[in-house]
C-alpha cells in the first residue's frame, strides 16, 4: 500500500511563463527601489521562485498576478532597504497572501497599465508626488521623510494622505465601499 500521492512538482515551464510575462517590470521596480541591479535581481529571483513554489501560473486573464508579483517585489525590496539601514523589519501580512482574484476592486486596479500609472503619479502636486515617491519607492517612513525635507511630520502625513486620495481617483480604484461608510 502506498502512502498519499505526492503533489505534482510545478513545471519549469510555469516558471518560465511567469518570468517571460513579468520580469522586466519586476526588475524595473526592484531597481527603482534599490538602485543596484545585483540586489534587484536577487529580490526578483526570490519572488519568482516563491510564486512558482506556491504553484502560481501565468494566466493572461488574471492581471492580479502581475500586481501581486510587483507587490512582493516591493515588499522584499523594502526589506533589503531596511536591512541596509539596520531598521527592524516589520513582516507584511499582505505580501504573503496569494492574489485574490475574487477581489473586484483589486482586479480593477490591476488593469492599470504602466502609462496610466505614470500619468496618475504626474497628476499629483509636486509636494504630494515627492512624499509618495519617497515612501513608496524609497521605503522611507514619514518621520524620515520629514527629516529629509525639514518639514513637520504632520505636514508629511497630510501630504501622503492627500496624495493617496488623488492617486486612488486617478487610477480609477472603485471607492463605493468607502462612500457607503
Amino acid at each position: 500500500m502506498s502512502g498519499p500521492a505526492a503533489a505534482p512538482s510545478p513545471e519549469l515551464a510555469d516558471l518560465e511563463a511567469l518570468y517571460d510575462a513579468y520580469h522586466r517590470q519586476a526588475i524595473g521596480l526592484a531597481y527603482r527601489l534599490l538602485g543596484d541591479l545585483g540586489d534587484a535581481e536577487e529580490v526578483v529571483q526570490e519572488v519568482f521562485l516563491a510564486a512558482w513554489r506556491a504553484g502560481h501560473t501565468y494566466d493572461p486573464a488574471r492581471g492580479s498576478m502581475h500586481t501581486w508579483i510587483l507587490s512582493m517585489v516591493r515588499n522584499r525590496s523594502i526589506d533589503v532597504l531596511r536591512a541596509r539601514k539596520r531598521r527592524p523589519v516589520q513582516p507584511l501580512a499582505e505580501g504573503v497572501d496569494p492574489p485574490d482574484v475574487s477581489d473586484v476592486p483589486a482586479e480593477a486596479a490591476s488593469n492599470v497599465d504602466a502609462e496610466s500609472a505614470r500619468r496618475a503619479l504626474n497628476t499629483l502636486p509636486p509636494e504630494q508626488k515627492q512624499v509618495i515617491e519617497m515612501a513608496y519607492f524609497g521605503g522611507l517612513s514619514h518621520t524620515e521623510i520629514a527629516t529629509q525635507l525639514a518639514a513637520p511630520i504632520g505636514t508629511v502625513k497630510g501630504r501622503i494622505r492627500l496624495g493617496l486620495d488623488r492617486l486612488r481617483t486617478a487610477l480609477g480604484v472603485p471607492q463605493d465601499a468607502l462612500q457607503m461608510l
Partner: protein
Amino acid sequence: MAAPSVNGHTQEFEELAGLAALDVLDGPERDRFEAHAAGCERCRVIVRLDRQTLRGLSLAAPPMDPSPDFKQRLMQRAADELAKRQTGDPAAPAAPPTPAEPAAPAVAEPPARAPVAGPAPAPVAPTPLRPPGRVIPFRRQRAWLTALAAVLVLGLGSLGVLSYMNQVVATYSLSSPGVPGTATVIVHRSGQAELRMDGVPDPGPGFVYEAWIIHPGQAPVAAGTLTSGQGSVGLDGSVRGTTVAITKEATPVPPGPSSQPIMATAVES
C-alpha cells in the same frame, strides 16, 4: 461626506491608514492604529483601497532588462530545487549515501575468501568498502581541498567582479512621439553602454537603423546598425555627456547621418 465617528475616529487615523498601507508605520503609532482599526471599518477599508492604489503605482517604475544570464540562473536554481524534490520523493530510488555516512574503516581489507575447488576463478579485485577514489591521505586531502577552495574563490571572485562591473547604473529612454516602441541607452558600472531597441517597426528592406554618438560641438560618430527594430548594439567609448541618436539609413550606410534622427536622448555627464 464626513465619516461617522467610530471608536474615536479622527482624520489622523486616516493619515495613519495611508502610512499603514505604505508599510512605513511602526512603533507605538502602528500599535495605536491597529488597535483603532480593529474596531473601525472605515479605516480598514481605507487601508485596503490604499493598498490597491499602491499596487497600481508599482507599474510606474520603468521596465528594465536584467543581466543577460539572469534567466538562466533563475531557471537553473528552479531545476536544482525540482531535482532535489524528486530525490526526496519516497517513491524515488534511494539517494546515494552522503560521504559522512559510512562507519566502515577508511581503508578496507579485502574480504577473506575460502579456497574454491574446480577451475581457478578469474582474479577478482578486492572490493573496498569505499570507492578507491575517496581514500585520500588526510594531509593530501587537506592540500587538495585547499587548492579546490582557492580555485573556487578565484572563480567566484571573478564572477562577482564581472557581475558588479555589469551592473546597470543608468538608463536613458529615447523617445519620439511618432515612433512606436522604445529605445534605451543602458550604461553599466564598467562605463560600457549599449543601445537597446524594443518593439520599433522594422526599417524595411534596404534600410537599417543606425546609432550615433554625438559629443558636444562634434560630428556624429557611427556606433552601429540594427537591421530590425528589436535588438541591441554596443556603444563604444564613454557616452557620458553625449547625445545618442538613431537614424534610418539606406544600405550601404553613408559615412554620416543622411536624415534627421527618429529618436534621441541626452546622456548625463
